[in-house]
């Protein structure tokens, strides 16, 4: 009895020691792709920390699906060519709980204990911020697909690459489209979530709008995870803008639409950076989703011919729907694209050497099912235009911009709430 406390402490210490010394043995269970270090047959292991719980659980799931779908496909095709042999692809994914500390911790684990060769990105700018720093520290390449904030890439990192179009470009398509539909459009209101990504989107839109001679009559940011934006909407209503642009995440987008309807705010063009293209958007809003447009990193309707494992956006969508039972959101596509970037770089490098692959990535220029994959010296993909999609009254999403990729015409103007 008297010893109990000593035992307790001893146990504590042993626990710590065991974990530390032979910690390397831990963490296998969540490996999605089986094999570790390849003896005879070679295996390329990619690692990623993705949000499977917490506030980005949903988006994280898309990311994971995208990664997995690619791995499944490429292994069907035998694997990735490295020099003269082909290597099977394995994937190791952890749940970062939508928490940056955890994200960093997990990436460090992937590198120093699971010894993955290459890293894939998490979801969200915050976590990407944290993890790119780790990758840089260990000089392991990380191709990420879900952190669009340019700030991440202005740190002069050598090993970070992003396949997606950077934030400032998100809303440009909508502005071009609006002006194309009606040259008399004068005023635009822009609201942004107070977050690294959203603010860049908004600022980019503001600069572009002014460049195009539009007058920005309202420009403000709202608190993260806000539960009520009616005050904001009220303020906007008073300004009565032609275009209302929102920069944020699905949550806020839904909120803004709902409350814009409550307060009967009906601009001629109603557009968002993120949200309208996600399946939940229609699910959550029903008919109210009609006519609302959203920027899209990628859409299944894009007309692209590629010689990657998917070939065309349509094929990707088909495979995705077959595996996960819904149309692929763009997060899934860009995540798969990150792996395609790796594949092409590895094939070009003809080796798995981290620095050779890194250099190959830097000089990559490839047209994938997702769009053009090419990185500027900062590691951002500024060469891929954003598409614009519109929620049609028939309940479907159609690409309406850029014109050459459009599958349906852009319905203009937005049908006022009180005339429905």
């Amino acid at each position, binding site marked *: 009895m008297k010893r109990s406390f000593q035992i307790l402490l001893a146990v504590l210490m042993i626990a710590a020691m065991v974990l530390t010394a032979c910690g390397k043995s831990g963490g296998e269970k969540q490996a999605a792709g089986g094999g570790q270090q390849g003896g005879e047959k070679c295996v390329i292991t990619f690692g990623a920390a993705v949000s499977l719980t917490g506030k980005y659980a949903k988006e994280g799931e898309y990311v994971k699906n995208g990664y997995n779908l690619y791995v499944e496909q490429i292994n069907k095709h035998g694997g990735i060519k490295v020099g003269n042999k082909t290597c099977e692809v394995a994937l190791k994914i952890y749940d970062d709980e939508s928490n940056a500390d955890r994200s960093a911790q997990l990436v460090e684990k992937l590198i120093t204990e699971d010894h993955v060769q290459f890293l894939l990105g998490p979801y969200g700018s915050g976590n990407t911020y944290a993890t790119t720093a780790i990758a840089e520290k260990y000089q392991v390449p990380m191709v990420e697909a879900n952190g669009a904030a340019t700030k991440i890439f202005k740190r002069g990192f050598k090993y970070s690459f992003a396949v997606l179009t950077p934030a400032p470009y998100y809303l440009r398509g909508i502005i071009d489209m609006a002006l194309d539909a009606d040259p008399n459009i004068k005023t635009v209101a822009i609201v942004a979530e*107070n977050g690294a990504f959203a603010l860049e989107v908004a600022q980019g839109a503001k600069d572009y709008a002014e460049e195009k001679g539009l007058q920005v009559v309202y420009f403000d*940011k709202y608190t993260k995870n806000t*539960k009520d934006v009616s005050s*904001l909407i009220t303020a906007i*209503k008073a300004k009565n803008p032609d275009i209302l642009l929102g920069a944020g995440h699905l949550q806020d987008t839904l*909120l803004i639409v*709902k409350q814009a309807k409550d307060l009967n705010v009906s601009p001629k063009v109603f557009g968002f950076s993120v949200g309208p293209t996600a399946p939940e958007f229609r699910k*959550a809003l029903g008919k109210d989703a009609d006519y609302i447009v959203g920027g899209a990193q990628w859409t299944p309707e894009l007309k692209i011919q590629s010689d990657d494992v998917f070939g065309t956006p349509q094929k990707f969508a088909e495979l995705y729907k077959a595996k996960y039972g819904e149309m692929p959101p763009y997060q899934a596509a860009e995540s798969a694209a990150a792996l395609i970037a790796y594949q092409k770089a590895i094939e070009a490098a003809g080796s798995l050497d981290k620095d050779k692959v890194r250099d190959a990535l830097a000089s990559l220029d490839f047209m994938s099912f997702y769009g053009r994959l090419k990185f500027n010296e900062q590691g951002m993909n500024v060469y891929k235009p954003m598409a614009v999609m519109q929620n049609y009254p028939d309940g479907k999403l159609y690409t309406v911009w850029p014109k050459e990729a459009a599958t349906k015409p852009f319905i203009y103007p937005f049908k006022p709430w009180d005339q429905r």
Partner: protein
Amino acid sequence: MGSLELTQGVVNAILLSGTLALVAIGFSIVWGILNIINIAHGAFIMLGAYVTYWLFTLFGIDPFLSIPLSMVTLFIVGYVIQRYLINLVIRAPLLVTFLLTFALEIVIINLATFFWKGDLRSVTPAYSGAGFTIGAVQIPYVRLGAFVISLLLTGLLHVFLTYTKTGNAIRATGMDIDAARLQGVKIAQSYALTFALGSALAGAAGSLISISFPIDPTMGGAYTLRAFLICVLGGLGSIPGVMLGALLYAFIEVFSGIYAPGLKDAIALFVLVFVLIVRPTGIAGKAFYH
């Protein structure tokens, strides 16, 4: 500033205050009578919201009609939790109950996320978004409905606490636990009832919220803090106090929302601290209801 902003803002604030009062009232009686800060209050609100959501999506039950059901559900949940868990530590230092309810919140939210996923959901009955206008001012039906129902429930609570035997027992417990015991009030019982009542009201609030706002498992936290702010602003210990606090808070939130959206909460919070500091004891009214 535009007069439209002003008038619409005022209307929004008043409508919002109803729901907020309901959000805070349950929190307030639990605090007032059990002297417990129930961190899990927001989680209960979330559960209420999901009850309404599921009844609506699965059986197409009108959200307003589902309110009683979510109240009953939460009543049971609350009763069990108080009777068999919180009652065990009710006399421990404040930190203990604080952390206990915090842990409860973690568990509830995590389970909710696990079973229902983290994504945002909305209850969209046919009439959602519909409303009428007075001048340029827009008045959505759902918010008006929420407002009316909140007042109704608050009124009912008042009647219950004042004119029923159980209600008196609960109030007695809040006033003087020993005196109450002498009068043969079963303390454990009356505590459990109080907590259950608070939870039921949280459930109702959740249902109403789910009609006007999108919901997700983590939605509750914001409301717990609001509930606290309102209790402090209005003064703990009386239903009118809570309603006053709710109105006050609604105005702060709405107008800081119009003129400084990013600092919405910060402003409200600093107001709270200021109130606390200028009358630290004044606010701490005797904790019982009348």
